[in-house]
C-alpha cells in the first residue's frame, strides 16, 4: 500500500510540473477577429496592427493552399515583434499545417552543404495527408506513473496502465511519450487513444465511471464510454507527414549500416525525385493530399548569396512552401559579396517578396506587452513598478525590460513580498547593465581592459575582416 501511495504522490508532482517559459510563449495566435481585423490586445499580441493584418491575409493565402512559392519578408527594428508575428501565424495555422522555423545561420554546418540544409528545410515544410493503417491503443487510463531512475538525474521511466471493459495492460513509456502525456495533462479516468507508431495522443474524454469523482468538472468535460474488447486495434488513420520524413524513411540504409542511423546526412537527389513522382501518383489517385506549409527563416540576412540564388529557383517549383523571412538589417552588405542591398538580400529575390514592415511600439503598447509578460512569468507587479519598467523599455529596449521582470520578482521574493515594487525594479536596474550603459562603462574604462591599444579603430578593422 505504501508504494502505491508513494507512486500517487509522484504522479501529482510530475503533472503539475512547471512548464518552461520561452521568449514568445505568451503568443497564442495572431489576435485577429473572424474578418481578419486585428484586435488591439489579443492572444498575446499587442499593437503592430498593420503587420498583423498583413499576416492575416497571408494566413488566408496559406489556408487556401493554392499558390506555391510565395515569399514574405518581415522587416523592422530589433524588438518590434517580427518573430512574434511568425510564431502567431504558426499558432493560428494549427498543428496540421507544417511550420518549420529556423535561423539563417543554421544552414552553415560541416555535415551537409548549405543547399542541402535549405532543401531539407523546404521539404520539412510541405505536408502530405495520407491514409494509413496503424496500430492504435485505445483505452481508459487507470494509472500514470513517472519516476526518475536511480542515480543523479537519470532517465525518466514511465508506466501507463490502460484498460477496456475486457482487459488491462501496462505499458512502458519513453521520455518523449512521458512529456506528451504530461503536456496533454492525461490523468486517471481519461479515455485516450495513442498512435503506436507516431506516439500521438488523442484525448477522447472522461470515462462515465468517473463522472462523479469531482463536483466541479469544467463545462467542456466530455464523458465517454470505456472502450470494449482489445486495447490494441488496427485502424485507418489519416496521417500528416512531411516530404522530408518520407525522404528519410526511404533513404535509410538497412542491415549493418542501420547501426549508425539517426542522423540522415545528405539525401540523394534520385530518392527525392522518386518520392516526388510517387507523391504525384498518389495525388492523382486521390490517395493523398498535399498541404503546403510555412518555412520561417529568422535572421535571413545571415544567408549568403548562394542560398539566395538557390531560393530564387526553389521558390518557383510547384512543391514550394510559403517562405517567411525576418530581418532587422537596413541597407547592408549581402553576405558572400561586396555589394550592398536593402535588408542584405539581393534585389532579384526582394522583387519576388512581399514586404511587411513592423514599427517600434508606442509607450502604452509597451506597457501592455510588459503586463502580458508579467502574467506569463507568473509575477505580481505593482502599478508604479510597471510604469517604471515601461520607462526603462522606452529608454533602453523592450527585451532588456522583459529581462528585468523575473529578476525583479526574485528580488521581491528575497524580501518575502508578494508584489514587485518600484524599489525592486530600481535595484535590478542598478544590478544589471543594459547595452547602452555597458557601452558607456567600456568607453570610460577602456584603457584598463586587456588587449587594448587605445585606438578605437582597430576593433572596427577586425569587424570588417571577419565579415
Amino acid at each position: 500500500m505504501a508504494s502505491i501511495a508513494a507512486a500517487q504522490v509522484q504522479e501529482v508532482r510530475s503533472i503539475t510540473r512547471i512548464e518552461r517559459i520561452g521568449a514568445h510563449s505568451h503568443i497564442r495566435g495572431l489576435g485577429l477577429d473572424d474578418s481578419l481585423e486585428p484586435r488591439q490586445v489579443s492572444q498575446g499580441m499587442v499593437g503592430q496592427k498593420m503587420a498583423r493584418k498583413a499576416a492575416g491575409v497571408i494566413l488566408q493565402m496559406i489556408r487556401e493552399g493554392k499558390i506555391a512559392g510565395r515569399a514574405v519578408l518581415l522587416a523592422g527594428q530589433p524588438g518590434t515583434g517580427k518573430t512574434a508575428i511568425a510564431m502567431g501565424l504558426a499558432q493560428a495555422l494549427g498543428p496540421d499545417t507544417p511550420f518549420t522555423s529556423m535561423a539563417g545561420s543554421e544552414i552553415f554546418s560541416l555535415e551537409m552543404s548549405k543547399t542541402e540544409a535549405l532543401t531539407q528545410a523546404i521539404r520539412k515544410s510541405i505536408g502530405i495527408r495520407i491514409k494509413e493503417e496503424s496500430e492504435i491503443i485505445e483505452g481508459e487510463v487507470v494509472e500514470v506513473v513517472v519516476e526518475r531512475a536511480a542515480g543523479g538525474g537519470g532517465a525518466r521511466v514511465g508506466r501507463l496502465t490502460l484498460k477496456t471493459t475486457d482487459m488491462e495492460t501496462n505499458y512502458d513509456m519513453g521520455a518523449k511519450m512521458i512529456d506528451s502525456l504530461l503536456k496533454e495533462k492525461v490523468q486517471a479516468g481519461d479515455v485516450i487513444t495513442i498512435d503506436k507508431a507516431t506516439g500521438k495522443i488523442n484525448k477522447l474524454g472522461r470515462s462515465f465511471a468517473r463522472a462523479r469523482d469531482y463536483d466541479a468538472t469544467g463545462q467542456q468535460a466530455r464523458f465517454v464510454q470505456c472502450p470494449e474488447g482489445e486495447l490494441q486495434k488496427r485502424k485507418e488513420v489519416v496521417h500528416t507527414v512531411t516530404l522530408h520524413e518520407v525522404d528519410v524513411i526511404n533513404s535509410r540504409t538497412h542491415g549493418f549500416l542501420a547501426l549508425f542511423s539517426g542522423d540522415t546526412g545528405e539525401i540523394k537527389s534520385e530518392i527525392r525525385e522518386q518520392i516526388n513522382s510517387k507523391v504525384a501518383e498518389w495525388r492523382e489517385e486521390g490517395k493523398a493530399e498535399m498541404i503546403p506549409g510555412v518555412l520561417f527563416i529568422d535572421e535571413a540576412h545571415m544567408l549568403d548569396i548562394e542560398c539566395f540564388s538557390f531560393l530564387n529557383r526553389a521558390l518557383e517549383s510547384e512543391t514550394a512552401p510559403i517562405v517567411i523571412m525576418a530581418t532587422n538589417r537596413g541597407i547592408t552588405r549581402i553576405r558572400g559579396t561586396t555589394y550592398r542591398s536593402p535588408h542584405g538580400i539581393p534585389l532579384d529575390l526582394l522583387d519576388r517578396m512581399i514586404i511587411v514592415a513592423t514599427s517600434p511600439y508606442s509607450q502604452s503598447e509597451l506597457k501592455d506587452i510588459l503586463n502580458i509578460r508579467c502574467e506569463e512569468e507568473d509575477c505580481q507587479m505593482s502599478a508604479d513598478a510597471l510604469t517604471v519598467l515601461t520607462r526603462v523599455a522606452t529608454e533602453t529596449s523592450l527585451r532588456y525590460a522583459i529581462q528585468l521582470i523575473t529578476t525583479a520578482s526574485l528580488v521581491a521574493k528575497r524580501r518575502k513580498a508578494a508584489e514587485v515594487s518600484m524599489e525592486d525594479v530600481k535595484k535590478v536596474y542598478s544590478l544589471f547593465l543594459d547595452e547602452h550603459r555597458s557601452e558607456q562603462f567600456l568607453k570610460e574604462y577602456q584603457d584598463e581592459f586587456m588587449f587594448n591599444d587605445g585606438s578605437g579603430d582597430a576593433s572596427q578593422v577586425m569587424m570588417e575582416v571577419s565579415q
Partner: protein
Amino acid sequence: MKRKTCLIETFESCENYDKKHRNIQSGTATMYKNTIWYHTLLDAEKSCLKEEKVKKIHYKFEDGREMVEEYNVDTQVLLRRAWKVKGKLGGEGKWHVEIGDPIPDAISNSDCAEITECKDQPQVFRRNTRINLEWRIRNLPYPIETYSISANNDERCIVIRTTNKKYFKKFKIPELERLNLNIEQANIQSSHHFNTLIIMYKKPQQLLDMEKEWYEELKKVKPIKDIPNDCKTQ
C-alpha cells in the same frame, strides 16, 4: 434472348461454385487444390535454402508480397512463417511473423518505440505441431478456470475472455481462413502451465492433407548450392 441465357448460365456456374464451397467444408479430400491460396502458392516464385536441419523457402508472389517458411527436415513441421510488411510510405519494411518465434531485431527498438507493452505483460506466440495449431500466451498467471475460449464464426476468430477482466484477445486462424474452413468449438483444447496458457486446435483433415501435399511439392524446388559466404574477405 441470347443475353438471358447467358445470364442463367452464369447463375448456374455460381451455384456450382457454392456447391464446391460446401464440398470443401464437408471435407472432400482434394478440394484445397481449388483454393486461391493453393494457386498463389503454386504460382509464386520460390527459392530454397537448406541449413542443417532447417529448410527455408522464400516465396515471391505475383502481387509483390514476400513470405518465408522454415521447415524442420526431420519432422516436416513448419517452424516459422513470416511475411514482409511494407509501409505505405515506402522504406525497407519489416518481417511480421505469423507462426514461430519472432525474429530478434538487430537494432534495439527502444529508441524509436515510444510506447511498448511491459516485459511482464501477456504475449502470444504461435507454434504449430504435427497435428495441432498452437497458441502459447505467456505471462498469464491466472488459473485455468479464469479463461473462456470460444469460436466465433461470424468474425472468423477465436475469442479468449477472462472472468477477472484482465485479459482479452481475438485472433484469426489464417490457415483455416485460406481453406475456407469454419472454426469448430470441439477442436479447441487448452491447458495452463507455468504462467502459460496453451490453446490447441486440432488440424482438420483438409489442412493435414494440404500440408503433406505441399511438402512434397516443395521437394521440386532445388536448394541453392553455392551460398555466398558473407564473412569472406577479398
